[in-house]
């Protein structure tokens, strides 16, 4: 019988993990609502630029591969916990955050480009819903960057303990979830918008 991993050893640790999974259920409802709004308003472009005119596949591909790889590397961080390998933990977490920064950099540039081309939050229903859906995801990633830095500092100072392992595992659930949401954004906002 396999012993329980460090991050869910005690009662409090496994309660925190369950609580976070429930939170992710709520986030599925949240992003589901944002998708419903986007899909309802996607064709309401008024006199503003359309998604087909605005979207650039290159930027989307960089964002997608950056986030997808960062989801892989955060998994390596969790694996490093199981191996009690602090150096691997720190390295892979730094790589994850770097990839997250690349994602955000491309996305922010993308937003600035849209605004420059006359497509703002205020231009049309389609653009309002596009910016809020992408922006909510991006805000979640941004929050995740700060959270990840906090975990980096805490693990650097305290080492891999039950507390830091538990927090890191929960952080990894959050980071994976953001990648799942991105998969749906990539498929049903960008690709769908470009082939539409």
């Amino acid at each position, binding site marked *: 019988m396999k012993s329980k991993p460090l991050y869910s050893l005690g009662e409090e640790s496994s309660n925190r993990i369950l609580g976070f999974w*429930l939170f992710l259920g709520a986030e599925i409802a949240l992003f*589901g609502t944002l998708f419903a709004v986007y899909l309802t308003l996607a064709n309401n472009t008024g006199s503003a630029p359309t998604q087909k005119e605005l979207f650039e596949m290159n930027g989307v591909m960089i964002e997608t591969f950056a986030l*997808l790889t960062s989801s892989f590397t955060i998994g390596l961080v969790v*694996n490093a916990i199981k*191996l009690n*390998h602090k150096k691997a933990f720190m390295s892979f977490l730094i790589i994850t955050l770097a990839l997250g920064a690349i994602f955000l950099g491309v996305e922010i540039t993308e937003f600035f480009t849209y605004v420059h081309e006359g497509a703002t939050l205020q231009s049309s229903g389609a653009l309002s819903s596009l910016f809020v859906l992408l922006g909510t995801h991006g805000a979640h990633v941004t929050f995740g960057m700060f959270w990840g830095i906090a975990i980096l500092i805490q693990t650097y100072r305290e080492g891999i303990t039950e507390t830091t392992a538990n927090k890191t595992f929960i952080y990894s659930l959050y980071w994976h979830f953001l990648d799942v949401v991105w*998969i749906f954004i*990539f498929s049903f906002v960008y*690709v769908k918008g470009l082939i539409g």
Partner: protein
Amino acid sequence: MSALFPKQQVVGFIQSLVLTIIALSVYFLDIPYSISLIILIVTALLQGGLQLIVFMHMGENEDKSVLYLNLGYAIFVAVTIVFGTLWTLLWGW
């Protein structure tokens, strides 16, 4: 060194890359719209499932039945909201 890159995670990563490329192909290969949508739905669901089971260790959790129930309910609510809204406000008659 290889212990740092567990086989399951690496295989999962490669599988997600493949699924992403398949999804991208509907754009690059100009696949007809309805087939494209089906491909996108299938690849998205498969990748989502991959993340949940392989990366997020859903099946290894001691509370996994609660987790599956939670996920099921969440998907039910999200699907209802998306298709309920589209049907009520756009498609319905």
